[in-house]
């Protein structure tokens, strides 16, 4: 499964080289790039180990959670939101501010 996905990535890269850099092509390239990222992600994860419930002890630890360091993340998100033009990523919601 993983090998098939990697083959698809190579094919996509070959196709992308043939596309001329017109405006339409640039849009296509963006979609292709996104697709490649998704494909690489799943190509690497399809070979994942299957865990039994009792083998999840490490993953269940608090410091292995995606939302660990919540209070720090909350502050950092607001600081960088007020200093940079990009925002978002880990989740949605949470409200805005008129940050200076």
């Amino acid at each position, binding site marked *: 499964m993983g090998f098939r996905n990697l083959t698809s990535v190579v094919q996509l890269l070959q196709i992308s080289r043939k596309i001329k850099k017109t405006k339409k092509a640039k849009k296509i390239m963006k979609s292709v790039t996104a697709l490649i990222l998704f494909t690489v*992600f799943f190509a690497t994860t399809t070979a994942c180990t299957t865990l039994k419930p009792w*083998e999840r002890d490490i993953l269940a630890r608090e410091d292995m959670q995606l939302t660990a360091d919540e209070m720090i993340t909350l502050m950092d998100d607001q600081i960088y939101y007020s200093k*940079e033009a990009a925002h978002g*990523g880990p*989740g949605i*919601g949470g409200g805005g*501010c008129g940050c200076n």
Partner: protein
Amino acid sequence: MQLNKNNNISAALSRASLILLAAPIANNANAADINFSQNEYSASAMIYIEENRVRVNEDVIQIKNEISDDEFVTATLIYDVMSGPSPSGAPITPVVQTITTPSGNQKTISAGDEPTYGFLDSRVALLANWAKPLSNDLKITSNASFSSEYDYISSGGGVTFSKETNQKHTTLSSGLALTYDSIKSVGGTPEGLNSLDLKKQKSTEGKTAVDWLFGVTQVVNRHSLMQLNYTLGYSSGYQSDPYKIIAFLDAASKTPVAINPYYYEKRPDTRLSHVLYLKYIHDFSGDVFNAVYRFFKDDWGISSHTLDFRYTFLFKKQRKLQLHARYYNQQRANFYHYALYNSAGTGINNRDVIANSAVGNDSLSAELDFASADHRLGDLETYTIGVKFQTTLSYKETLLDVRFDHFRQQDKSKRFTELRGWIAQIAAKLPF
């Protein structure tokens, strides 16, 4: 001593049984969403200081309560006070500048200094989060938020569904959030590209934002976990910063033109953005490596890359030391200008030049659709390094975090003073 040991064993057994029963995969939906069956009080105090600029004191209190099996309600109260000078958008010039502030006063800026506006504001925000299982592998998370400042009110809500598949190795999430912001700036909300001296005021402006998220979380093996999120964002309404201005300079002298040298900035009414967010967590026998890559792009022309790494060392007695490094690289918005010029000249980019005949006009709307000199929309880089120490107190296994971060931000052309900031924070989490 014996009592503490028994408590620790009891807590460990309780947690282990929960692990076996629930076998949770962390959910990516919201920051307040942690899957432990444990009620908690959390509190945090933070001081944020910029060199010669803004200072923020921010306090947070949070209560998380399990109201039934795996059903959690979390309420968070935030209070912050912000003060200090913030850049106005006007450039550094070799002559003295006199600029009208938002409150209508005249401010004189010395030659060679960066023009800023001073401000003082406080903010109260309330966040609520409700996570409820709908079936064995499907969960709904709802959230609501309200934030109020003197000149800005924001309210919003959202819903996220998460489904576990592949024997709970994969979690698929999809969510929608809606936010409405109301802006009522000091001295009235200005119309963009109008001269400061001929201010046209509107009472209140509004902005609506919609975010749609699709996420995949995958257990890689017993020691690692990956998350990939895509967020599509669309906002509509007043998106300008009412306190930011842009200067019109004479190309030969690089000084403000004699008549109407400053204008309010103007940004497009709509913004479409895409965010790709990839996170990887790996355990090294107790140490934890955490890596994030984020790609952001919008139809204003802004694109950015963010890298964030944290490595946590585990010491005896559950004490932890975390090292943090972050890098941010941004490409400017199409309508960003350092300043506007009346003709081409040395060191002047052609895209910043508008017709000399526009000098003295009350409005630049005929010459430009949009313009901003807010350097947060420009080409810039941010570097952050930090350290965090965590310990577990004997009282009810309270977790205590202390952290310090330092960051530096610089526009790539190095025309502005480098921004240097420090963050100090202390946070505690108390189970009950």
